[in-house]
């Protein structure tokens, strides 16, 4: 077997096992840690696909920022015992059934579709091309994403601070 094949199965196992443990864990902090492991696995898969910039962004944004935000959310909204902080609701069985059915359907569609593949080539560095595209062809969506981030920032501050009812 090639090295890349072994690495793919290794990273896929890390992603799927930690994602499953994230859902199954009864402790919300453990869930957050498993989620971080899963995100790091996804970053490694990006590296296997020669997406070096996206792997770095994945580590920086997901592992560095979003998971810290989620852990803060856990800490600020905790009540009672942390060991039982992440229970299932009454839809557990229905959730399993729906997800399994969706997975079988997606898997069947993926295996039946005749993809028009081109020969994949190893690229050396994607950052130059991504900057060209972001500031060239996709300049307008780039600005819109900036405005979206600004609006989300202001909205999060206002909602999080709470509106004072002064009469």
């Amino acid at each position: 077997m090639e090295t890349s094949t072994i690495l793919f199965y290794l990273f896929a196992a890390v992603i799927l096992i930690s994602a499953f443990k994230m859902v199954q864990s009864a402790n919300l902090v453990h869930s957050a840690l498993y989620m971080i492991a899963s995100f790091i696995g996804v970053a490694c898969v990006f590296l296997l696909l020669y997406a070096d910039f996206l792997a770095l962004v994945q580590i920086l944004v997901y592992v560095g920022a979003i998971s810290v935000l989620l852990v803060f959310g856990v800490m600020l909204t905790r009540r009672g015992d942390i060991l039982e902080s992440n229970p299932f609701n009454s839809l557990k069985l229905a959730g399993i059934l729906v997800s399994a059915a969706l997975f079988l359907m997606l898997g069947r569609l993926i295996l039946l579709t005749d993809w028009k593949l081109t020969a994949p080539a190893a690229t050396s560095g994607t950052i130059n091309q991504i900057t060209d595209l972001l500031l060239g062809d996709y300049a307008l969506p780039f600005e819109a994403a900036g405005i979206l981030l600004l609006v989300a920032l202001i909205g999060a501050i206002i909602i999080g601070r709470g509106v004072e009812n002064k009469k």
Partner: protein
Amino acid sequence: MITLNHYLILAAALFCIGLYGALAKKNAVAVFMGIELMLNSVNINLVAFNHFMSHEKLTGHIFAVFIIVVAAAEVAVGLAIVLSIYRHRKSSTIDDMSWLKW
């Protein structure tokens, strides 16, 4: 040899685990974690399609960057809403958030 199908199946499995977490969990923060997993699996799909179907142009990477932006904005606003609801109701359980239902 790892083909496109391997990556697509991996992403589909990750998406379904995320969906299971988002559907079957009581805590709002756990539901957010499930949604983040689903967004991540979409990113894997985009990058894999880009690599195997049109690697000359990095359109899939650009889309993945925008999805990461939207995910960051979503998590910031969503957690602010959860904190705000927690201040009023002293609970972050989704079943308790039924103000708009009668």
